[in-house]
C-alpha cells in the first residue's frame, strides 16, 4: 500500500507479441464475470486475479490489455493493481512462500520458521532465489491464529508450521522440479 515513485517521463514498457490476457480469459470474463456487475470496472479485480494466477505477476502490458478490454483508462487499472498486495507488479519466483508475522504467529515462534526457510533457500525476506523458483515474504494475518504459526506456499496453507515441515515442503518442490514436473500447477 506504499506510494510508488517511478520515472513516468522516461519509462518504457516491455512488450511481447503474445497477449497476457488470453482469449480464454476474455471468454470467461465475458461469459461469467461481466454479467455479475453493473460496471465493467467491477470486473477489474477478477481480471487481475486471472492474470496473476496464470502468469505469476501482472506485467504493464497485461494492465494495458485489461484496460482496453474493460474500456477503462490504463491509469485506473494501475491505480487498483498497485493498491492490492496480491498483485505482483514485478516478476516473482514460481513458488511464493509467505509466512505470517502477525500477533498470534509471532508469539508462537514464526521467526524460527522464517529463519529455517531463509537458511534453506539462501535468501532474505523479500528476495527470490537465483533459479527463479522461490520468493520468500512475510505477510500479515492469514486467519490461522488458532493453528499458529501459519504459512502459505502458493495457495496451500500450512498450519502449525514447523521449520522442519516447511523445509521438507521446499525439498519436495525442488525434487519435483528437478524431475521435470511442477509440484501442482505453477501458481496454485
Amino acid at each position, binding site marked *: 500500500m506504499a506510494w510508488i515513485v517511478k520515472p513516468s517521463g522516461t519509462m518504457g514498457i516491455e512488450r511481447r507479441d503474445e497477449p497476457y490476457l488470453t482469449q480464454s480469459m476474455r471468454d470467461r470474463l465475458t461469459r461469467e464475470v461481466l454479467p455479475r456487475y*453493473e460496471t465493467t470496472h*467491477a470486473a477489474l479485480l477478477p481480471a487481475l486475479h486471472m492474470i496473476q494466477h496464470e502468469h505469476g505477476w501482472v506485467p504493464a502490458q497485461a494492465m494495458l490489455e485489461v484496460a482496453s478490454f474493460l474500456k477503462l483508462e490504463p491509469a485506473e487499472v494501475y491505480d487498483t493493481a498497485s493498491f492490492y498486495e*496480491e498483485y505482483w507488479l514485478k516478476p516473482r519466483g514460481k513458488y511464493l512462500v509467505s509466512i505470517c508475522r502477525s*500477533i498470534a504467529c509471532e508469539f508462537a515462534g514464526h521467526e524460527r520458521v522464517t529463519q529455517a526457510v531463509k537458511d534453506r533457500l539462501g535468501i532474505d525476506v523479500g528476495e527470490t532465489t537465483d533459479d527463479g523458483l522461490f520468493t520468500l515474504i512475510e505477510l*500479515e494475518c492469514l486467519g490461522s491464529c488458532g493453528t499458529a504459526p501459519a504459512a502459505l506456499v502458493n495457495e496451500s496453507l500450512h498450519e502449525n508450521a514447523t521449520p522442519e515441515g516447511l523445509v521438507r515442503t521446499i525439498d519436495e518442490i525442488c525434487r519435483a522440479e528437478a524431475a521435470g514436473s511442477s509440484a501442482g500447477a505453477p501458481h496454485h
Partner: protein
Amino acid sequence: MARLFTENMGGAGILTRRIPTPPFGDMKQRHVVRYDEYVRTGGYVGLRKALGMKPGDVTEEVKKSVLRGRGGAGFPTGLKWTFLPKVEAGKDPGARYLAINADESEPGTFKDRLLMDFDPHLVLEGIAIACHACRLNKAYIFIRGEYHHQAHVLEEAIKEAYANGVFGPRGMHNTEANCGGERFQVDCYVHRGAGAYICGEETALLEGLEGKRGWPRIKPPFPAIKGLFGRPTIINNVETLAHLPSIIEHGADWFLKQGVPGGAPGAPGSHGTKLMGMSGHVNRPGCYEFELGIPLRLFVEHYCGGIRGGKKFKAAIPGGVSMGILGTDQYDAELDFDIGRKYNVLGLGTACPTVFDEDTDMVAVARNIARFFKHESCGQCTPCREGSGWLYQLMTRIEDGHGKTKDLDLALEIATSMGSMPGTTICGLADGNNWAVRTIMNKFRSEFEARVKRTYVPVTVNAG
C-alpha cells in the same frame, strides 16, 4: 454450579451444529457439509419459514431478537436493515445489494473462516433470508484473497444452491411461495479481495467490489441509501447472517434467552451465541461457540485447558488487535458487548481472544501491532498514514533499547491525536491503532519505562 455459557444452547452448537466443536463434539471430526447433508440435518427450514412471512415481519423478528453485528462493531442488525429506503408496493425498487463481509483480516480472528470452511450453506441460507427481508436482489460475498480454499468451498456451495432452487431464476424468492407478494430473482456471487485489510471496512469493501482501490468513503451518504454502484446496500458479516436461519426458525424469544442482558439502562443486551476463536498461549486453541458473556478466565481455564506450560496469565486481546488489551487484573472480563465500557478497551471486536502468558514482552506486542497498522493503513488520511509509521518507529526504538523517556509521552500523544479525537480520519483504522498502542502502554507502563533511557533535564543551580 457456576454458569458454563452453553446451558441455553440446547445441548448442541447453534452456528456449529454441523461443525463438531467442544464441548459438544470433537474438532477432529469436522468436514465440509454439502447441500444434501445440510438439508438432511434441518437446513433451509428457516429460509422456507421466512419466505412464508412478509419481509417486514422478518425484519421485525430480527429487530426483536436484538441480534448485533458479529463483525466487530456490534450494531443491531435489524435496525441497520430499516435504514434502507422503503419499497413501495407494485413499484420496481431497482437494484438493491447485499455485500457480505468475509474479508476476515483482523489479526487474531479466524471465526468466519470456520463457517466457510465447513458449513457454507448456513451462510447462504442467511444470505437468502436477508435478501427476502430487505428485498435485495444481488448478494456479493467479499472474501479475502488469502482464503483460497474457503472461496472454493463457497463457489461449490453456490453452485449447489443454484441447482437446488435457492438462488437464480428458479430460486425460492421467485415463486408463488414468496410471501413478499412480488417475485424477484436473487443472485449470489463470490468476489475475491486481493490482500488489503482495509477492505474489511464497509465502504472500502464497496470500493473493492467496484474494482477500485480500497479507500473508505466519507459518510454520509450511508451505504443503506447510496452504497454499491450508488444503490441501496446492506453490508453484513458472515457470522451475523449465519445466525438468521435459527432466529427465524426458533423465534426471537429463543435467541433472547441466550447470552446476557445489557448493563446500562436502555442499552441493547448481548444475546445469542458467538463464535470465539482462541489463540495464543493456551493449551487448546481453536474456534469455539459460547453464549455471549462468558468470562475470559472460564474460557481459558475450563475450555482451553489453561495457559500453556502451567504459566500465569498476563494479558489478552479481546477480539482483534484494534480492540486494545486486557491487563493482568482483567482476566475475569466477560466477553460481551459491554466489555469496552467496563474494562477500558475499544470493544468486543470479533470476540477472538489472543492470550499471552507471563513471559510475554509487552513492548514486542505493541511493536507487532504498530507494524501491522503501519503496513495496512491505506494512506488516504494523513494522521493515520503518518501516525502509524511514527508509532511503529517509536515502538521499534523502545524495543531495541534506544528509546528515551520522552518517547513514551510522544507515542501516547501521537496515538491519541490520530485516533481518539473525533473526525481526524475517514474510517476507524487509526482509532484501532490508537486503542491498541495506548492501552498496552498504559496498562503495562512499567515495562516500557524499564526499556527507555532516562531523559535528564539539565538544571543549573545558582551556587552564588
